[in-house]
């Protein structure tokens, strides 16, 4: 249902993106040639017919050929997907790991100088737009310090069905700046959420009980408090993973990262309708899958949900 709606909305948007015919034919084309191509591509058909045609072929994983470069869309997206997924996963891991760690730290050491510093500087992560963070990082680490590459994926190793930058030095170096750029917002969000939840949980009676039983701080924080804050944190982090994939567009443009986001942006400039619709469908699909996984993780983490399950099965 969600996917059907995504497809429909994207189709309506395409009406306003422009006309691909000029890009395909070039400036020397005559009016007659334009009309002929519009016919051939089915652009003159009413929107519901175009939508129907698209759905029929999408169900068969048949997305047609890109107008730009004339390669099959499915192949094009599959070849770009590894780059985007590696970037998204790295930045999500970065965001969640540092987010939770710093969140716990600032909750435990409330009011200390370092905590206040982390909290106030984390505002940068939420308030600065992604492209500006990217350009700033490039400026500092590539131009001034010359430590890290400013664009691209570095050297990648082709595994046949997957290209990876994880196995080469230049690939790993290239991953650092884009992952920070993409993950900073996510990290800030997770950190603030973890801190707020942690502060809330530490006031609860059972924590006081744990203290009175003489448990160490470490035991209390990590075995009693942490599991209780994980549900909201995982919900947010999971939903954010979807937007990380979606927001990768900006990061990929700034760093010339050859993923699906860059592919999509170029498709928009070129009015490459087959690529745009397939991409939007893919992102919609990713959101649906991620939500499903998040729901399933609850059951893993929260024993109460598991028990209900068992009861109903009985």
């Amino acid at each position, binding site marked *: 249902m969600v996917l059907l709606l995504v497809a429909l909305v994207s189709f309506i948007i395409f009406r306003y993106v*422009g006309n691909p015919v*000029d*890009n395909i034919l070039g400036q020397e084309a005559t009016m007659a040639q334009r009309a002929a191509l519009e016919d051939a591509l089915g652009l003159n058909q009413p929107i519901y017919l175009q939508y129907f045609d698209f759905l029929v072929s999408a169900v068969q994983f048949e997305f047609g050929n890109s107008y*730009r*470069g*004339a390669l099959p869309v499915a192949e094009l997206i599959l070849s770009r997907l590894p780059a985007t997924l590696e970037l998204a996963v790295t930045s999500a891991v970065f965001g969640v790991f540092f987010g939770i760690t710093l969140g716990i730290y600032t909750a435990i050491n409330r009011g200390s100088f370092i905590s206040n510093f982390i909290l106030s500087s984390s505002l940068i992560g939420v308030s600065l737009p992604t*492209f500006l963070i990217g350009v700033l990082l490039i400026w500092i680490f*590539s131009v001034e310090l010359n430590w890290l590459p400013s664009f*691209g994926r570095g050297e990648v190793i082709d595994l046949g069905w997957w290209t990876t930058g994880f196995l080469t030095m230049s690939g790993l170096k290239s991953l650092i700046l884009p992952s920070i750029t993409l993950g900073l917002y996510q990290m800030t969000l997770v950190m603030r959420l973890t801190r707020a939840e942690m502060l809330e949980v530490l006031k609860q009676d059972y924590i006081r009980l744990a203290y009175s039983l003489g448990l160490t701080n470490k035991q209390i924080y990590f075995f009693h408090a942490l599991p209780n804050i994980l549900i909201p944190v995982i919900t947010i982090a999971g939903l954010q993973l979807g937007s990380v994939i979606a927001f990768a567009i900006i990061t990929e443009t700034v760093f010339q990262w050859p993923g699906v986001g860059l592919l999509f942006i170029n498709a928009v*400039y070129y009015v490459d309708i087959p690529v745009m619709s397939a991409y939007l469908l893919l992102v919609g699909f990713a959101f649906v899958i991620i939500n499903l996984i998040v729901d399933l993780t609850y059951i893993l983490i929260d024993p109460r949900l598991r028990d209900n399950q068992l009861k109903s099965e009985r």
Partner: protein
Amino acid sequence: MFKKLVIPAVMISFTVASASAETVRWARAGDAITMDPHAQNEGPTHALNHQIYDSLLQRDMSGAIIPSLATDWSALPDNPKIWRFNLRKGVKFHNGASFDSEDVVFSLNRARADGSEMKELLSSIKEVRAVDSHVIDIETNGANPLLINNLTNMFMMDKDWSEDNDVTTPHDVAKGETNFATMNTNGTGAFMLVSRSVDEKTVLKANPNYWGKDNYPNQVTEIIYTPIQSSATRVAALLSGEVDIIQDVPVQDLGRVSSTDGLQLATAAQNRVIFLGLNTVEGPTSELKVRQAMNIAINRDSIKKVVMRGQSDPTGVIMPPFVNGWTKELNKYPAYDLDKAKALMAEAGYSSGFDIVLNCPNDRYINDEAICQAAVGMMAQIGINVTLDAKPKAQHFPIAKGGDADFYMLGWGVPTFDSHYIFNYLVHTQTEDRGSWNPTGYSNADVDAMIVSLESETDLSARNDTIAKIWANVQDAQMYLPIHNQVLNWGMKSNIDFDVQPEDQPHFQFLKFN
């Protein structure tokens, strides 16, 4: 035994060092769309294909036509409809096959086939014939004195290779086809394709059997081409030394590049003119006096100074200076004169002004939207209340040429370097096959007839007279308000000796290291 092992190792390290010294890492904003040489008529695509494929004749780094795969050419003295080309001998394709007249006939027919975006440039051709193995004739429908201007980006492919790989026609987007030539090449050019990953990286290496070894410097042994779309990142990559040469340096970063040690900026006029078009049929702009008033209300000098930071060449005619028909008199732009403009507005009955929408692209030309914003302010001074409507090019162009706009921005490059190319698309009445970019409503039967006559006039001085007459008509009608010619900027390492090419096409066989 030990010695034997050492020598190759030393040799290898030596070759690696010298090879990397001659590698050029090249970046620009956009990637080539396809490697199929006839499928797209587009700047970045031609620029990359020019490294791999050759045409019969080409433009050098100054824009002048020089021989390439043809050594010489002329129209037959007794029949101006037939052009004869003598082909270069001993040329080999990258796969080792020999280049001969069969390949030329095949390639030109391929470029004229359905699905080719180059076919409009060859529409005057009736037939291409091989006379012998290294001579060909091109017969045109009427005499076409400027045929060779249309051949500079017409690349030659190997007939057998194309047949073996089933790429005898360019891919046709409308039919949803893909083909082998989109990602694979076999040319005669100075460089061979090693690997290509779209939007990411394309690697080329010098062709060891290149026919032009003695004709050009050929100092580059490897090209690594990376498109970098974000202009800030592109400049950063040059400043940090990750690339050696970039095209499309944004105007706000020119100072930064030229003042950095080890970098230099090369600048040249581009073959592209920017102008505003007006509806001559309906509304206030149908009054000639209004159009004249708007023309002198544009302060071209301040657009150059403020919007373009000095990087433009203001003009009074919609024709770049390389084009046949260009004169200093035409290029002279009218003085900015508000009093006179206001007087003209009053004479036309619009002393209190009027409202109009200006349609403008925001991702096509250098500072396009900012130029339009400046024009809005300038028009306000003579009472015209302009609403700016800036859109991405994919949306702007259908509006601009569909006749829905009363006031719009357009830029025009002239690949044939002849005025006819401007007249045919921008001046001729809009019909099925001509005037496709003339939505102004300007229509003059005499001018139309003169434009068509240019296509077969062989007497060059008579032809130039006609061109001058048409320009006089265009200047009088004032349906276009010229702004400026764009200026190209390439940033590169100081040790590179390379001119900026007016079509924005670097030909790396010409590059020298200091």
